[in-house]
């Protein structure tokens, strides 16, 4: 049988074949060829697209190259959301490769945060890790760690080093032996169809009667519209994490330990069921 640890590797090494095309209105000195790249699901766009920027810079004038930003079918892509989440939410039921448009002009201030350097990505990533631990352990585990341990989490992510990352992250996945799980589960539920950016609430992994709460229990509690069937009994939504639909009977404690992103959050997409 597959070991649970194999799931950790499968999640870490997930990739999305992507085709980057320069926006047609960008001014170029020569024709810009599209650029193909396998994007890590667990990383962030601005962390892994230096080569993309370099590629398009070659055909542009220096003065036209300002902050790069990405868009999919008219929707600006938030670099501070993990790549896998962006794909699952916007493009999971379309044919590969994922076609992303690259922009250097008209930065959409209202939709995107600026990303002037890698330090900003690191700060954002670490803030998410800290927020997750505030929920899981009242910040006790993250605060007990030294600065170098925090740095190791970031370096592991930045350099795609699974072992380096998990040497520290495993501590964030532990809980006291007298408990059955974390204090609260760090999760965020995203739906393109709603106004709100995401749903995040306090949710315990264990019910009052000692039973492990499931993914279905979580959804019923915080996003019931995602799981109520249509009048004809058909499921109208897919509940997706890392490109798959986990069984609703899966305990959220297990999901949190094995299918969180490196920021220690479970990022869950609710998307319309594809129509064939």
């Amino acid at each position, binding site marked *: 049988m597959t070991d649970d640890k194999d799931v950790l590797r499968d999640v870490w090494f997930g990739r999305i074949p992507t085709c980057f095309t320069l926006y047609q209105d960008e001014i170029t000195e020569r024709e810009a060829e599209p650029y193909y790249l396998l994007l890590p699901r667990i990383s962030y766009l601005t962390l892994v697209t230096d080569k993309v920027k370099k590629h398009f810079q070659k055909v542009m004038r220096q003065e036209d190259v300002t902050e790069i930003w990405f868009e999919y079918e008219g929707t600006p892509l938030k670099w501070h959301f993990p790549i896998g989440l962006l794909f699952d939410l916007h493009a999971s039921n379309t044919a590969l490769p994922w076609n992303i448009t690259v922009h250097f002009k008209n930065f959409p201030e209202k939709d995107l945060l600026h990303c002037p350097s890698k330090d900003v990505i690191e700060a954002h990533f670490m803030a998410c890790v800290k927020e997750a631990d505030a929920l899981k352990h009242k*910040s006790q585990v993250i605060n007990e760690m030294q600065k170098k341990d925090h740095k190791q989490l970031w370096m592991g992510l930045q350099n795609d080093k699974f072992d380096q990352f998990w040497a520290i992250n495993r501590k964030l996945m532990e809980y006291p032996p007298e408990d059955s799980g974390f204090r609260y589960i760090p999760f965020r539920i995203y739906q393109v169809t709603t106004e709100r950016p995401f749903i995040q609430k306090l949710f315990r992994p264990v019910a009052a009667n000692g039973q492990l709460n499931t993914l279905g229990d979580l959804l019923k509690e915080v996003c019931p519209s995602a799981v109520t069937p249509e009048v004809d009994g058909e499921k109208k939504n897919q509940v997706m994490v890392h490109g798959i639909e986990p069984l609703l009977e899966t305990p959220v404690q297990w999901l949190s330990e094995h299918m969180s992103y490196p920021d220690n959050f479970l990022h869950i997409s609710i998307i319309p069921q594809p129509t064939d």
Partner: protein
Amino acid sequence: MSEVEEQLPVSPQDGGRGECVEESSDRGAAVGAAEPPPPSAGSPVTEESAAEDTKKKIDILLKAVGDTPIMKTKKWAVERTRTIQGLIDFIKKFLKLVASEQLFIYVNQSFAPSPDQEVGTLYECFGSDGKLVLHYCKSQAWG
């Protein structure tokens, strides 16, 4: 129970959402220019009798860190959909900081939420005693 509320101009950076940050007054406390001493853990808090879910606004308590200027008014009733960036802009205006000066906001004295985070979500997850305590600082306090 009546609450004295002061309408404040909407920050133009709010994307036209039309929210305002309103001063939330303590029941029984003197209303006016006199600033009461910084609230201790046991000081009275404005209590809404309406259910949490239907409350459009949440109470935020702002605490200064280090040598950052202290807000004359610390308690504010804020729309749930207000973002951290919106709050930062408001505090900077209130403290008369220049746009180039940075301001950091922390939850639980441990993490700085993303600028696009909604205060309502933070209140749900990290609020206590009917309010969300946020620390603000001109420099990075907790990394």
